[in-house]
């Protein structure tokens, strides 16, 4: 237990979380994150409810075999195309950290995780001309935000029931977006640059409950229902309002076609329209509910060492929450693959995932991203 606490403090507490930003997440609370391990991402997310290192559903802790600490890094290399310009962007973040530990002879598993809830990393530059002091002045604006909402989850799962694991999680959603606005009047040095900053902090809580049931040795069915309550916002320590966070409903199935070959599928529905009124009140077009569909497969080399050099593949389609001005809902689809290896007598491991994502809004804006996940895990 002591080693578990050391792992928890070392891995979870200081972690600054963020992950893939997107041009489709500039508005609203930010681009939603995915509480998945590198392994689950490699299967398109379809194994998320059956993967002990993912924090999508609390009952997936039932798949944990031993105390484990996982730390995931993500490299995001994006090409952005809009009617205004094309550009290449890159970021590196740490989207998922998790510590798990079984106790009570393995019947109970506790998990502490920190994952990305929404990401508000962006920086946009615009040029405009206005008339000030009766003269046209060219204004160069740079609006940026660095930060995210993180989802700190404390979850427990019980797998003492026949063929069934149930879990409960409590989520602390908190984070800060450090926002800046810089305006330079590039055509007239008489005007001083405007530099304004704010720290917009959000905090809220959520609850999740989930279960997984095995049907024989080949089929697993899992599901989770999660409710995130209102997120309170303050800007530089001044209360500036709140908005409702979405419900999450997810269900999935995993089927073992052969002892070394599993396939899975998952459907997730999130009621992001809960943010709509807040966005519309602020002048934004609003938001809609999202659907996330994924299928994936995992082929392992050895049943005894499934984490060593498996082949994982996945496909995914999802709608994105924030509407365009014309009311359309952007979407994304992805293909992913990955593998991993275990060493040091399986006490340590690395999983690598390559995720190719295409995002579009149907109005000429698109984003192609290579997402490279590298996760290190320790089983002390």
């Amino acid at each position, binding site marked *: 237990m002591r080693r578990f606490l050391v792992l928890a403090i070392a891995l979870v507490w200081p972690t600054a979380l963020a992950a893939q930003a997107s041009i489709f997440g500039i*508005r609203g609370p930010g681009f939603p994150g995915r509480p998945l391990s590198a392994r689950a991402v490699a299967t398109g997310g379809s194994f998320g409810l059956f993967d002990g290192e993912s924090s999508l559903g609390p009952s997936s802790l039932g798949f944990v075999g031993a105390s484990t600490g996982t730390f995931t890094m993500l490299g995001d290399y994006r090409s952005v195309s809009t009617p205004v310009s094309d550009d290449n962007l890159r970021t590196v973040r740490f989207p998922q950290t998790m510590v798990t530990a079984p106790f009570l002879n393995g019947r109970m598993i506790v998990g502490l995780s920190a994952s990305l809830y929404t990401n508000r990393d962006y920086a946009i530059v615009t040029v405009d001309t206005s008339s000030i002091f009766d003269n046209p002045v060219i204004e160069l604006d740079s609006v940026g935000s660095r930060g995210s909402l993180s989802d700190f989850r404390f979850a427990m799962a019980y797998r003492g029931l026949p063929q069934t694991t149930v879990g409960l999680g409590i989520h602390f959603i908190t984070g800060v977006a450090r926002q800046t*606005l810089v*305006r330079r009047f590039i055509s007239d040095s*008489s005007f001083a640059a405007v530099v304004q900053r704010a720290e917009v902090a959000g905090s809220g809580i959520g609850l999740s409950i989930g279960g997984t049931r095995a049907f024989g040795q080949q089929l697993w069915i899992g599901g989770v229902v999660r409710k995130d309550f209102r997120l309170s916002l303050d800007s530089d320590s001044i209360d500036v309002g709140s908005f409702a966070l979405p419900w999450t409903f997810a269900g999935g199935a995993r089927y073992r076609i052969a002892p070394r070959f599993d396939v899975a599928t998952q459907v997730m529905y999130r009621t992001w329209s809960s943010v709509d009124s807040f966005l519309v009140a602020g002048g934004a077009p609003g938001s809609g509910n999202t659907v996330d569909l994924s299928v994936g497969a995992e082929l392992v080399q050895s049943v005894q060492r499934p984490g060593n050099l498996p082949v994982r593949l996945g496909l995914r389609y999802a709608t994105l929450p924030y509407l365009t001005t014309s009311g359309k809902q952007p979407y994304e689809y992805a293909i992913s693959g990955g593998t991993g290896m275990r060493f040091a007598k399986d006490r340590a491991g690395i999983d690598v995932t390559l995720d190719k994502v295409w995002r579009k809004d149907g109005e000429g804006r698109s984003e192609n991203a290579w997402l490279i996940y*590298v996760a290190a895990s320790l089983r002390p």
Partner: protein
Amino acid sequence: MSVARTPVTRVLAGALAALAIAACSEKLATPGDCPDLCPNAELTVFDTTIVAVTGGDSSFTGYVAPGTNTAIFVTTDGFAPMNARGIYEFLRRPDSVLVNDTLRAYTIDSVAFLIGVVGRDTAVKNLRVALYRLPEGIDTAGTFAELAAALTPETFIDTVPVPDSVRSGTARVVLSGEALARVALAPADSGVLRIGMGLTADGPTGARLGGLSAGPLASFYQTFVTSIVADTAVRNTITRGATTTAYEQEAPDPAADASRLVVGGAPSTRSLIRFELPAVIRDSATIVRARLELEPSEPVPGLPNDPAEITANAIIIDVGAKSPLLSGLVEVDTVLAGQTGRIEIEVRRIVGQWQAGNDRPPAIFLIMEPEAATFTLPLIVSTADPARAPRLRIAYVRRYPFVNP
């Protein structure tokens, strides 16, 4: 077995390290596709004009005395802004010099006058400073008429030609032979040489000659002397600077009244202008530009081609004429003689001092520089005429609504 695993472990550890290093190289900025992919909030620049508080503007005189700053004024007859003659009184010249540790008498070989020219109008050619020996009884306590009457052919010493190409510098003339009699000191002079100065040129003009604080452009005279020591002629130079630099002008400077403010002149006049800053600007706005606009009531009197600077100064507290200036916070604009157009001074930093957090008084002190040492004397329409009163034009932005999605 472990031997076989080690290289793989190292490779993977290297991959992790490479990814970590890559974290130092982020690029997030992209051109915004607005309004679709931009935050909905906009930063609007507001452009507003604030007229000075009616009756809150005043002119105060007596800060810097004539001749005590960098320059005195000397003019030809007919120069419109003023008619002035100058006075130099030099440090006492000793009647002996120290040679081989012994004071010895000397004979004068020649005398040179070096007159510092601080400013002039180079468009007027053949400028000459006429030097006159001032008789007893003519001094700085006198009047222009008394001084002008003393500058006669009988007291004329010589003229100092100022090359046409010189805008500022030192002009020199040397007297020798019979001319030395014009500057000979009598016992009653107590070794002190006092001269008066007029100006001649191809047209009406003026010149600013070195005053007490002129530094390298100070005026002085040199006496080249010879002492005989053991059948050997020993040469020395006695240099004496002006200890009194003054001038008399025929008519006083224009005075302030209810309809106009005065900035400049000698003794110098400053003007204090008060404003009332709206709460929206004072409390939270970011000022991107603030300009003080002043309307001359008439073409600015001054010496052509000899620009001066009008400065706007913030004050620490508002106690009227003696309001202490906030050091290091001075905004400047150049004023030209004959200028009829608006005087505009960028005062963003000063107005920033009026905002919450600094809370300095919303007032500006106007001062001409060099104070009491420039012909330039703007006369500015006061708040008695609201349409042309001093005013601030301010461009500002309010707090950006960062929470606005």
